[in-house]
């Protein structure tokens, strides 16, 4: 289902990697008519997958009783995707850039997600929200093309 008109949409997934495929379909369906190339759509979908996969594994430790809210906003000159969770706060901006050769030598299988997000999106901001600061919002922004 593709909605070409300006709109917002939201979904809630359990903190389980089995939810990621449906989440990717959800994000794709809401941004694919926003004027991006297929290449850009694939990149944005990947960035959201990476953000949520990190949250599921590192934030929630695969506790599927926890949830993640994802809000896609396709109303302005930028598309904006908010990811909300109640896990331990985590700001991707503090993650060092991965060193490919060192990762191979160390047999590291992870640590790429933030690098992907940074390269694909135009802006990523982390905001602690809520009275206790126990809820987090990660906002990923991509400028929409003016003329294609």
């Amino acid at each position, binding site marked *: 289902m593709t909605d070409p008109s300006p709109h917002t949409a939201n979904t809630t997934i359990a903190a389980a990697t089995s939810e*990621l495929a449906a989440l990717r379909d959800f994000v794709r369906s809401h941004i694919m008519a926003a004027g991006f190339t297929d290449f850009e759509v694939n990149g944005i979908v990947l960035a959201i*997958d990476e953000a949520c996969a990190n949250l599921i*594994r590192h934030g929630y430790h695969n506790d599927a009783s926890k949830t993640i809210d994802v809000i896609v906003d396709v109303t302005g000159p930028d598309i904006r995707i908010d990811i909300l969770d109640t896990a331990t706060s985590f700001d991707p901006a503090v993650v060092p850039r991965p060193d*490919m*050769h060192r990762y*191979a030598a160390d047999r590291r*299988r992870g640590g790429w997600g933030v*690098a*992907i997000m940074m390269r694909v999106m135009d802006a990523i901001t982390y905001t602690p929200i809520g009275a206790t600061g126990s809820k987090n919002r990660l906002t990923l922004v991509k400028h929409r093309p003016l003329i294609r």
Partner: protein
Amino acid sequence: MTTTFTVTSATADRRTIRVAVAGQLDAHTASDLEAALHEVIGRGDVRLVVDFAALDYISSAGLGVFMVFIEQVRAAGGDIKLAAMQPKVHMVFDLLGFQVLFEIYPTVDEAVRAFPEVAS
């Protein structure tokens, strides 16, 4: 919705093993690939060509699986060569600069022929 991913392996020319991946390779299915590679490499097969032709999606969790094994395989005189990626999958390898570590070929046949011949 369940993520669909399959991995199969078969012998190919030049004493290589063709590992064919299909579907979506993400944080949910990466463990399936890791188990399959663990089994192949555990048998002593270290000349591997991964056929990506039927793979529709990959995230960094999928890329990470190859990182786990590459040093071990090369130390044993082999390699993991990657082949036949769709552009949307190749894009992810490009994003992270994985060409620095992995040889990526347009076709499986080219990847197989990139291995030195073995005297029989």
